[in-house]
């Protein structure tokens, strides 16, 4: 199996994607090298590992990585594989350790990954083990942006802040700027039988909730529909009927029934943000007062402060501001993806507010979430229909608003204003194709720098 010419797989102009990218094993292998072997990937948040020796087991592509708080307060990440014969040196998801022992032959490492003990070093190895060279392999680069820990396997990758750029940074600031943010104990993890890109594609998909999640909205379990600011405008649903022949009545509130102003921000390397503006999204956010703080206005800037949509940090990090969560889509194989959810609260906010944020997170997302429980089957079926010889010839469309997205560049951000669109998805797939070409970082940056139109 060989990989088809990349430029045949994604058409930015037509907003069409070749479905083979959702099941071809050769393409998946190339992704592991060109994307997950080079990109900065989110590992965890510093608040998860406050004390020296606290660790969290993260995943980078198919590499298992230990993120560990150091005695000096710093954070390190290393491959969870022994320098001797490769055994994992830690098999827990999280916890606190004074060091890591390989249970095979007893090579023993510090929480900094340094090789400290080798049974029989003198007697068996004649003291010749180069302990400095043979620690746990650190990730090529590690950096933390306002508590969000990222790493890359590529020593040549640009620094994290530059990689994130204004768009990626804004995505994280939309969490960080809310206050003194900490991760709530309990990372939800589950497996969906879909290709990872189908799940990523959904990140800033504001076109699906009204239909995919119609039952959640109607159930009332999400509480009364949010009030909206400004005029209310129904989505046109001409000809949209259920298989019983009846229409889908969407008149139960904002997301589920109305169109409203949206803004899409796109950035270098494929990052993006898409969704409503604060003004248009009314009370979705429940309480937007935090945006008025000096801290927030300074961090978010004049454009960012008005953004209420979903940031995506290429390739697999999704930020949601309501509830305040960060989600990863971790590829397992071409047709299986692990979903992880990290949930944030402002440590300084009153207990009942923190409880409310947790409660909201529990009921909205995650495998039992009133919204998310309906997503998986759509993704799974979309993936399943990419195998058939005829079905895979049908294009995967992300052409809503194609060629109509005028890009405004201000305050270091490139944004497109309008209504619901697929600008964000289109941008993601365009970037995906550039990454897959395996060009230099400069070429990649150039190829993923927004132009005037999308």
């Amino acid at each position, binding site marked *: 199996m060989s990989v088809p010419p990349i430029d045949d797989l994604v058409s930015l102009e037509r907003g069409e994607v070749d479905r083979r990218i959702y099941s071809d094993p050769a393409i998946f292998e190339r992704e592991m090298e060109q994307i997950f072997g080079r990109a900065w990937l989110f590992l965890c948040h510093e608040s998860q590992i406050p004390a020296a020796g606290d660790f969290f087991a993260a995943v980078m592509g198919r590499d298992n990585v230990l993120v560990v708080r150091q005695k000096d307060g710093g954070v390190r990440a290393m491959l969870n594989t022994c320098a001797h014969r490769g055994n994992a040196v830690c*098999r*827990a*998801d*999280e*916890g*606190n*350790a004074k060091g890591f022992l390989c249970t095979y032959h007893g090579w023993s490492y510090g929480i900094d990954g340094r090789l400290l003990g080798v049974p029989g070093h003198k007697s068996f190895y004649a003291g010749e083990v180069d302990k400095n060279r043979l620690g746990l392999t650190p990730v090529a680069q590690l950096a933390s942006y306002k508590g969000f820990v990222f790493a890359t396997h590529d020593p040549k990758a640009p620094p994290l802040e530059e990689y994130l750029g204004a768009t990626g940074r804004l995505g994280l600031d939309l969490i960080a700027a809310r206050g003194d943010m900490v991760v*709530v*104990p*309990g*990372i*939800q*993890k*589950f*497996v*969906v*039988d879909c290709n990872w890109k189908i799940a990523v594609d959904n990140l800033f998909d504001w076109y699906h909730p009204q239909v*995919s999640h*119609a*039952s*959640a909205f*109607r*159930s*009332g*379990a*999400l509480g009364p529909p949010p009030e909206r600011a400004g005029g209310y405008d129904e989505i046109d649903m001409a000809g949209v009927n*259920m298989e*019983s022949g009846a229409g*889908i009545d969407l008149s139960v509130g904002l997301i589920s029934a109305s169109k409203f102003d949206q803004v899409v921000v796109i950035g270098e390397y494929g990052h993006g943000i898409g969704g409503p503006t604060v003004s248009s999204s009314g009370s979705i956010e429940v309480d937007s007062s935090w945006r008025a703080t000096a801290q927030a206005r300074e961090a978010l800037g004049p454009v960012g402060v008005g953004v209420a949509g979903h940031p995506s940090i290429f390739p697999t990090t999704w930020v949601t501001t309501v509830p305040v969560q960060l989600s990863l889509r971790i590829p397992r194989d071409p047709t299986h993806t*692990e979903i992880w*959810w990290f*949930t944030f609260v402002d440590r300084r906010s009153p207990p009942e507010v923190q*409880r409310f944020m*947790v*409660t909201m*997170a*529990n*009921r909205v997302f*995650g*495998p*039992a979430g*009133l919204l*998310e*429980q*309906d*997503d*998986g*089957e*759509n993704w*799974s079926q979309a993936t399943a229909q990419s195998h058939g010889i005829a079905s895979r010839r049908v294009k995967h469309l992300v052409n809503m608003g194609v060629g109509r997205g005028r890009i405004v560049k201000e305050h270091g951000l490139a944004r497109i204003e309008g209504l619901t669109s697929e600008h964000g998805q289109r941008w993601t797939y365009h970037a995906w194709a550039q990454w897959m070409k395996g060009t230099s970082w400069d070429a990649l940056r150039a190829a993923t720098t927004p132009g005037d139109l999308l």
Partner: protein
Amino acid sequence: MEADQPSRERIAAAVRQYEVEQFYYDEAALLDAHRYEEWLALFTDDARYFMPIRRTRMQRELDREFTQPGEMAYFDDDKTLLGGRVAKLQTGRSWAEDPPSRTRHLITNVRVLGDDGSELQVESNFHVYRTRLRSEEDSWIGSRRDVLRRVEGSFRIADRKIFIEQTVLLSRNLSNFF
């Protein structure tokens, strides 16, 4: 356990066990028949329905294996939210459950751990099997710790804690009940 004639107490205990098991089997039958409203009625108004997140921990730290109420969970419902879930399933728009999942609740190892006359502490094990569409399969195995309240000659679930064995859930969603 003596071989001779059982005492009144032992007979009473056996009958209570029978009645608790029947309650669980009837409950399971309601779920597997998609009779969600009747199922909901088995809960008291002050009921909690909680499935914590489980994490692989070293033996030393096993006390922190499960998340606690107030932390993140898979389910952390009061009866209102549970009712919302049932309502959701009956909107006719709950796509992930239409066609409905086929579930089978196998309930075993029922143990009455306490009984103060008005409330029972009961533990049970479950294997919930699900198939969907042509050939999808899920198996969720674990245990439940319930508080059963005696109400009008029967039981009501006043509290349910569900402990699932998996740390990474090997299924696409949890659109069913346990």
